[in-house]
C-alpha cells in the first residue's frame, strides 16, 4: 500500500467531510488536482471499495467509469442497487427516481449521487439553501447542471430522513455538497 496515496486520501476525505458539513461551501478536493477526472478518481479512491456498489446515470464517459472501478475496486451494479451514482451533465434526466433513498428504519441505506459539472460558484444561484451546516442561507450555483435537476432533488428529499446526499465536482477540481437535510427554496418552477 502506497503511503503517499493513503495520505492524499486522508486529505481528500477532510475536504469531502468539510463540504458536506457546510453545504454550498466550495473548495478544492486536493491542492494538486485541477480537473474533473482527477477529482472524480480521487473522490472514488477515498470512499469506494469492493463493499460498495457503483453505477452511472446518464452519459458518464465509459473510460472514466471503468477507471473508477479499477482504481477503487468497487463493484459495478444496477442503478437501483448502487451506493454511489455518478452523473454527468446535464443531470439524471429523471433517473433519480430509481436511486435508493433508504428505508424508515435504515435511512442510511440510500445512494450518494455525485454530479460531474462544469463550474461551481458559491454565489449566483436562484435557490436559497438552508438547514444544518448553513448559517442563514446560501445561494450556490452549479454550471452545466440542468435546472430541473434541483426540482428532482427537492422531490427525492421531500420525505426526510429518507433521501439522497449529493456531491458536485467541477472542471477545476472543486467540490461542493448538498446533504438531504438541506432545504431548497425558490427557483424557476
Amino acid at each position, binding site marked *: *500500500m502506497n*503511503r503517499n496515496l493513503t495520505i492524499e486520501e486522508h486529505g481528500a476525505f477532510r475536504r*469531502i467531510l468539510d463540504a*458536506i*458539513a457546510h453545504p454550498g461551501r466550495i473548495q478544492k478536493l486536493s491542492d494538486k488536482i485541477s480537473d474533473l477526472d482527477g477529482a472524480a478518481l480521487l473522490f472514488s479512491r477515498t470512499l469506494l471499495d469492493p463493499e460498495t456498489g457503483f453505477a452511472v446515470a446518464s452519459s458518464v464517459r465509459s473510460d472514466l467509469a471503468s477507471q473508477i472501478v479499477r482504481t477503487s475496486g468497487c463493484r459495478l451494479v444496477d442503478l437501483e442497487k448502487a451506493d454511489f451514482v455518478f452523473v454527468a451533465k446535464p443531470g439524471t434526466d429523471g433517473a433519480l427516481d430509481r436511486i435508493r433513498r433508504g428505508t424508515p*428504519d435504515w435511512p*442510511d441505506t440510500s445512494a450518494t449521487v455525485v454530479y460531474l459539472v462544469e463550474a461551481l460558484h458559491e454565489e449566483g444561484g436562484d435557490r436559497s439553501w438552508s*438547514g444544518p451546516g*448553513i448559517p442563514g442561507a446560501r445561494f450556490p450555483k452549479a454550471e452545466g447542471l440542468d435546472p430541473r435537476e434541483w426540482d428532482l432533488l427537492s422531490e427525492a428529499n421531500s420525505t426526510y430522513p429518507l433521501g439522497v446526499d449529493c456531491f458536485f465536482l467541477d472542471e477545476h477540481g472543486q467540490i461542493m455538497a448538498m446533504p438531504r437535510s438541506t432545504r431548497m427554496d425558490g427557483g424557476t418552477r
Partner: protein
Amino acid sequence: MRVREWMDREAAPRSTFAFLDDGAKKDVRRALLKAVAIPGYQVPYGSREMPLARGWGTGGIQITLSLLKPDDIVKVIDQGCDGSVNAVNIKKFYERTAGVEITTDTALATLVQTRHRIPEEPLTDRQILVLQVPYPEALREVEPSEAQTRRMHAEADYARMWLHLYEDIVRFGEIRISYRYPCTVNGRHVMDPSPIPRWDVPKLHMADALFLFGAGRERRIYAIPPHTRVEPLEFEDHRFRVEDFSGKSCARCGATDTFLDEILMPDGSQTHYCSDSGHCDKRRAGWKPC
C-alpha cells in the same frame, strides 16, 4: 519460512499511515458522511477491533484515525483533562501511528478527541470534535431492544422518553438525568450527546464546529454538523438546567464560568478545580477569554 521467522516479520513496525487498513477507513468515512447528512441519526458501521479495549474509546479512535492528516495538531482529553490515563494512551497511539503533533491548547488543535467533556473555549468552524460514546442510543433508558428503538426513531415516536422525564418530575420534582442528557437534533432525531455533563449540552447548539460521535462497541457513528439546532428535551414549565456552581470558583485560576471538579481534601473539606485542565493552565498563564 518458519513460523518463528514469520512471527518476527509480523511484529515489525507497521507502515500503514494511521493504523487502520483501507477498507476499515472507507467504511468509517462512508458512515461519517451519512451521519453528517442525517444529523443525530445513528449510522451502523463495521467497527474493527482496536489495540485498545472496547469501551476505551475505540469508536472515537476509529473516527480520528480515518480523518488524521500528517499536519494535524491533535488534542485528546478525558474528563476535560489532557493527562488522564485514557487520553495519554490514545495520544501515544496517534503519535506512533500517524506522527501527528499533540497539543493541550484547544485553540491550536485542528482535531480534538474527547471523553465526557467539551472544551470550555468555543471551537471554530475549522475544528472537529470527536466524542467517544459508550451508549449511542438515547432511548435505551426506556427500551432495551435495538429493533424497537430503531422503530421508534423511524416513526419519530418519542412518547416513552417524554413520559420518562415527566414521571421523574412527578416523583422527584426534578429530571434525574445528570449526564447523557437527551437532545433533539435538527428538530427530528432524539440523540444521546455522549456522557458529557449538562453543562456542555448548550455548546452543541448552533455551534461553528463539527461534532462526530463514535461508539465502537455498539458499532454506531453519528454527528452534529455546524449551525444545527440541538435542543435538550424540556417542558415549558420545567426547563433544562445545567449543573449549579453558584458561589464556587476554581482554586487554581479563579474561574467562575467553567465546569468545576469537586476535590475532597485530606481534612474532609472541599475545593474546586476547572475540569478543563488546558483552559485552566492557559488562564493561569495570563490568557483572557474574549
